[in-house]
């Protein structure tokens, strides 16, 4: 079972994504505080990170850059998602694998995630 770390400061969306992914046979850890990302990656060891861009005090793009910079996590796939569709322009800059604009269709979310898991 693939493990996915979901980060979003909106707990409603967090709950939704958790249920969506759980019901499609993913193991999910959902966190709303960006400060917990590093420790969560260490303990949970996810196969993929689904990361919101505006995280209330932090920028998902910067966090993504940080993940890609660190030796042990540089191969960890990161998918950004945001209600601002313009954020899609920045995925190359912060080396994210993909971008999902909100609101999204379940099928689209699942397909995108699956395409980055072997």
């Amino acid at each position: 079972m693939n493990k996915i770390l979901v980060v979003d400061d909106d707990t409603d969306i967090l709950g939704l994504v958790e249920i969506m992914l759980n019901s499609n046979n993913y193991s999910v850890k959902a966190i709303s505080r960006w400060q917990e990302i590093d420790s969560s990656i260490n303990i949970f060891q996810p196969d993929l990170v689904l990361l919101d861009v505006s995280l209330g005090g932090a920028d998902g793009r910067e966090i993504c850059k940080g993940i890609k910079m660190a030796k042990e996590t540089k191969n960890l796939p990161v998918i950004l998602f945001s209600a601002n569709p313009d954020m899609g322009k920045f995925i190359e800059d912060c080396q994210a694998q993909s971008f999902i604009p909100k609101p999204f269709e379940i099928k689209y979310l699942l397909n995108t995630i699956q395409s980055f898991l072997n």
Partner: protein
Amino acid sequence: MSIRKKLILMQVFTSVLVLVIMFLVFIITDVKAFKQRKVNSVRSIAQVIGTNSISAIQFQDEAAAMEMLNQLHKVSPDITQAAILNSKGQVFAQYSPKDTAALEVPAFMKDSAYLFTKNRLLVTYPIVSSNEVIGKIFLVVQLNELKQITWNKYRLAILLLIVAIGFTFLIANIIQKYISRRLLMLVNTMKKVNRTGDYSTPLVDEGKDEIATLITVFNRLMAQITENVKKKDEFIGIASHELKTPLTTVKGYIEMLKMMEHEAPKKQFVDSAFKNVLKLEDLVKDLLDVSKIESGQLQLEMEEFDVSRLLEETIASAQMISATHEILREGEIKEEMICGDRKRIEQVLINLLSNAVKYSPGEKEVIVTLQKNEKELVIRIRDFGIGVPEDEHELIFDRFYRTKGSSVHISGFGLGLYICRDIIRRHGGKIWIESKEKGTIFNFSLPITGQTQQVAQ
């Protein structure tokens, strides 16, 4: 009348008025001086004749007096009539050309007086011998010379006036530019701002007068508007982000329910909830698009694609949503490659197709055609619905415009056609509407590949 013409006219009028008054004063004083000189000279002539005729009167020598008057006429031809009167006022001797009326001395004229009639000067002068008035001289002078001089002066004045008007016109034309140029600049900028909605460029002016104040106030207003527009765009950006966040959750849960639910009535509720969430999503997308258009951030992602195929796909998906209408494709169907933003063209098509369905309730058909000429592709979407009145043909492409007097309830912000027009214009194409006896045709054109370039707006 333009401000330019008014300024010139004002200056020319002022100059003409001043000059006319000046010329009149000069001519009147001149004529007056001339008359005074004439009177003085005639009076001195009369004095000389008077002195010389004392003996002729005393000795009643009429012949001598006549001779003297004849001599006078030879010396001063403008003295046309002359007479010597005795102390009782009776004519003693006179000279008068044959063709003129008999000489008459006006009774009211005293011994020493002068009188200007229409073009004659009448002068009387007393003949005094040993402090006693023994008679008087009466002279009539023709004033043709005065008439000539006056006429000459008027002619000169008119000539000078014309020259002056010419010069004033030239000078006024130069001076007015300083005022009108700046006003025209302001007016043109205002017109431009009105047309383009670009409030960002301030006017430059180095003057210190009221026009400068006007320009400063205008600039300040423009700055305020720019600031407000920026705030509004930011607000729309934030608002659409804020709306999308809860929408994501609602949409997600409904979608999950939709997948799980198979019982007929419950499925209907969920379907309906999901349909409305999609509507809400479209509204938010429209708001965001308008905000992008207004702030100039709407960018096209150009690629080469087959319009004909896009048309087929869009009609198919529109057909799936509409159970009431049949969307028909007419004409020959073959590949038509074009360079443009596929997603945005699709957005335009969806918008026009859903309008066609929405505004033709009770009808069954919407007809789509794709035509090609040497320069462009024209896509026509024909409905048989309520139609659009002629006077609204331009207005319906405006922001927030909602058709008036329609019996159909219309949802949405009234932004769809505004967005469509912007997208088509950015592709270098046109969008327009034709009214038919029944219903409407929406047309839009796209330049054929090789000519399509993203048009900066």
